[in-house]
Structures are given as structure tokens and as C-alpha cells.
């Protein structure tokens, strides 16, 4: 009886997580418009508690001459990450980009981001159990690149 109940719980948890990760923009639009990192992360995951345990990896320059295109590479040593999110605390909207990673996809992405000024770039990786892992790096920006 107990086993059956446990399996049932497991199934409903799987079903729920599939729905939740179907489209994080549609599910959590407010996180993308958030004005602070805490608000953005809470908006996405319901908690802003992250582990700084070295499992999230972020490659970014120490100094960026052009804030309009700062190269960053995000990756993780976690086995089955579900989502990866880049934030920049000096931008009007700190949430820069989010990825939903599928099994078989190597959890490593490179892109170029905009930074208005010298700020902290943070990568948050959600593992298969929903725990959040983070890493932060300060990038000095000589010429800001957020202007319209």
C-alpha cells in the first residue's frame, strides 16, 4: 500500500515538473520583468536560496571594453540540470536569459550579453531535484551597452 502511494506521488511530481518546465517565460513572465535578482529568481523558482558549491560554472572576462557585447559561457558539472539562468545586477531587468535543457544536451552555452555598467554576472543552475546552484563573477565594463 505504502509503495503504491509512493509511486503515485512520484508520478504526480513528474507530471507537475513537466508542466512547470514547459515554458518558463509563459509560466513566470513577471520574473523576466523583475527589477532585482532576488525577485527574478523567486519569480522563477519560488525561492532565491542558492548553493555556491562550485557546480555552476561561469566564464566571463575580467574587463569588458564594450558592454554592448560581453562574451559569457555558462556550464555545470551537475548531471541532469533542468534550467540555467544568467542575471546581471547592474541592468534595468537583471534576468538576461534562461535555458531549459533537455537530457542529451550538453549543459554548456556561450552567448554575448549587454551590461550597462560594471556589475556582477550570476549563473543559477537548477538541478534535477529543484535545488539551485550559483556562481558569480564581477565584470568591469569600460563602455556601457544597454542604451536604446
Amino acid at each position, binding site marked *: 500500500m505504502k509503495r503504491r502511494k509512493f509511486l503515485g506521488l512520484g508520478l504526480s511530481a513528474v507530471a507537475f515538473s513537466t508542466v512547470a518546465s514547459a*515554458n*518558463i*517565460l509563459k509560466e513566470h513572465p513577471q520574473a*523576466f520583468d523583475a527589477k532585482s535578482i532576488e525577485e527574478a529568481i523567486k519569480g522563477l523558482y519560488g525561492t532565491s536560496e542558492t548553493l555556491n558549491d562550485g557546480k555552476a560554472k561561469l566564464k566571463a572576462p575580467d574587463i569588458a571594453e564594450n558592454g*554592448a*557585447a*560581453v562574451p559569457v*559561457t555558462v556550464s555545470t558539472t551537475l548531471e541532469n540540470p533542468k534550467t540555467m539562468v544568467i542575471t*546581471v545586477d547592474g*541592468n*534595468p*531587468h537583471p*534576468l*538576461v*536569459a*534562461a*535555458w*531549459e*535543457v*533537455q537530457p*542529451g*544536451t*550538453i549543459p*554548456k*552555452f*556561450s*552567448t*554575448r*550579453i*549587454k551590461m*550597462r555598467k560594471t556589475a556582477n554576472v550570476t549563473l543559477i543552475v537548477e538541478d534535477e531535484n529543484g535545488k539551485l546552484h550559483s556562481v558569480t563573477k564581477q565584470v568591469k565594463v569600460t563602455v556601457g*551597452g*544597454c*542604451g*536604446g
Partner: protein
Amino acid sequence: MGIKAIAKVKKSIATVKLLVKHPMEPGAIAGGKKPTKYINHMTVKHGDKLVFDMYPTSAIAKNPYIKFAFKGAKKGDMITVEWFDNTGASEKKDIKLK
């Protein structure tokens, strides 16, 4: 608009570099006057299998560059890249892995 790609397979791992032509204009978000126009969803499939979804914002640099990799690929396989922006524009492209 336009999607350029370099997509290569080595030992069943595909490495793809994408360059998408798009203004990624933050407009009022960054205090500007131009209309806000940025890609807010990009999806990549390998055949029918989803590789990843990316949700960019206007803080991704103009003409977005994205590099990624996935397992289980072979030369000649097709991937599909599709993006959507906040104004309803979209573009889809099939790319052959070399």
C-alpha cells in the same frame, strides 16, 4: 533577419554556432525611445527531439550569438532552429549537420 550556422559533428557530439540577425532593441526598458523588439524564445530541435529552449531578453547583444552542443548526432542529421520575438515576428531554419 536571417540565421547563420556552423554545425559540425565529431564523435556523435554536434557543436553548433548560431548567429541570428536581430536588433534586440530594449527600447523603454533601457530608457530608449525606439520600440522594444527582442527575441524572447528560441527553440532548437534535433529531428523531432527537443534540444533546448532559450528565453533571451533585450539584454542579449544585438545579432545574438549562441553556441551549444548535444549528444547522439551524426553527419547529415537535421536540426531546426526557430525564434519568436515580442512583436510576434518569427523565423525558422533547418540546418544540416556536417
